[in-house]
């Protein structure tokens, strides 16, 4: 199974904070209530919880992506 990373659509995110409630091991909230996501891949044991966090976001702003974000950035014009 591919490594999965948590990513957030920063425009859709309106600081509900449900993701941090459901996945406190990986997601913290900054002082304004917005999620600070880990740069590393989601550990296998937390994948189910991460999927629940993605489903629980009231704005559907959180997603689990299969491709590591670092690769996408370097080749993008």
């Amino acid at each position, binding site marked *: 199974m591919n490594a999965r990373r948590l990513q957030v659509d920063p*425009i859709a995110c309106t600081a509900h904070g449900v993701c941090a409630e459901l996945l406190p091991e990986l997601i913290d909230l900054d002082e304004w209530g*917005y999620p600070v996501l880990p740069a590393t891949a989601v550990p296998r044991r937390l994948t189910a919880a991460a999927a629940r966090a993605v489903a629980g976001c009231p704005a559907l702003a959180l997603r689990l992506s299969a491709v590591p974000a670092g690769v996408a950035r370097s080749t993008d014009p």
Partner: protein
Amino acid sequence: MIDLHPASVARLLSAPPEQGTSLAAHRAHFGPLPPPGEAGLIDPVTRSGLRGRGGAGFPTGRKIAAVAAQPTSRRPVVVANGCEGEPVSGKDHVLLELAPHLVLDGALAVATALGADEVLLCLHRGDPIVPSVRAATAERQEGRTVRVVEVPRRYAASEESALVNFINTGMARPTAKPPRPFERGVGGHPTMIANVETLAHVALIARYGPDWFRAAGTADSPGTTLVTVGGAVAYPGVLEVALGVPLGAVLEMAGGLTGPAQALLVGGVGGGWLPADRALGVRLEHAELRAAGAALGVGTIFAMPAGVCGVTETARVASYLAGESARQCGPCMFGLPAVAGDLWALSNAAEDPATIVPRLRRRLGLLPGRGACGHPDGFARFVRGALDTFADDFGNHAYGRPCPGGGRPWLPLPTAGDPTPAGWQ
């Protein structure tokens, strides 16, 4: 009006201004735009190493190739970005005033290479050069649509996805990526967006080839570039210089400093401050400026004289950038005003600096990469550079000691825009 300096290297700005800017005069000086040869356009542009002149410095050839490689039957669209959102930059204006047809040559050459039917030239609404640019585009309706689009005058309105968003929906605010404009842009078509100066260089590469282009500049940053030199120099204005020359040499070309300089603002508010003693030897090219803590950006070099307060100027710029947040992403719309507030608090000795500084630095760490566009990243880079460059001044302010500037504003910044969504339409 910003003047062109006589000591410029003459490539983009080589046409004598007294002959006018009509298409006929343009062709008389530069010759007609040649049709693409066997190698096309993308290959020579890639080999030239030309990097975008809109601030990001991304290799232009790769960008055009990425648009060309999109797996779709939709014809690409070409967008020429002449908005010049950086408040202290004037180079795009000078270029559009003196050589609009060189820009249009480049845009049309790229359109031919991509099979694009439409070329859009973006300018800020109410810009004085709009009429002359419209007149120039009217002379170039040669088999495809070339039109001028007037965009709201906001700092981030000329960000690539913001331009596309404005053309598509009327809101000049950046959008979340993916998709990027090269994949899906104007009307869902793959879109090639380039700064007007970049396109002007493309027009010359189409005529003289990549080796000629590389004859100036460095391996990392080839060619010439337009720079806006201002502040405490004898002859402020726009110059064309070869990349790789030391900043001190550029200042000399502008007549030299008129007095002792504290710092140089390089790359505009999207770049950063460099302490003057260190800055003069730094070369005008992407890698070196990044390593020094600034950025080439859109090539502005402003010399800050004595008698100006770095703390006040940093706080002013921070407030300006915070006001220019498109207010779409939490960390930007809350974080930038928070940091600006911290900077003013340091400036006014309002709180114990031992409380403010760690809080400020923590907040700066929460900005990069957490917005839909690079605005918070540029902001954080700018403020971090300022804290280092003006460390002594920040210390003085924090402990209530007198400062050289007396709180008088120096850098010319626009007035605050409308914070509601209507201010981006």
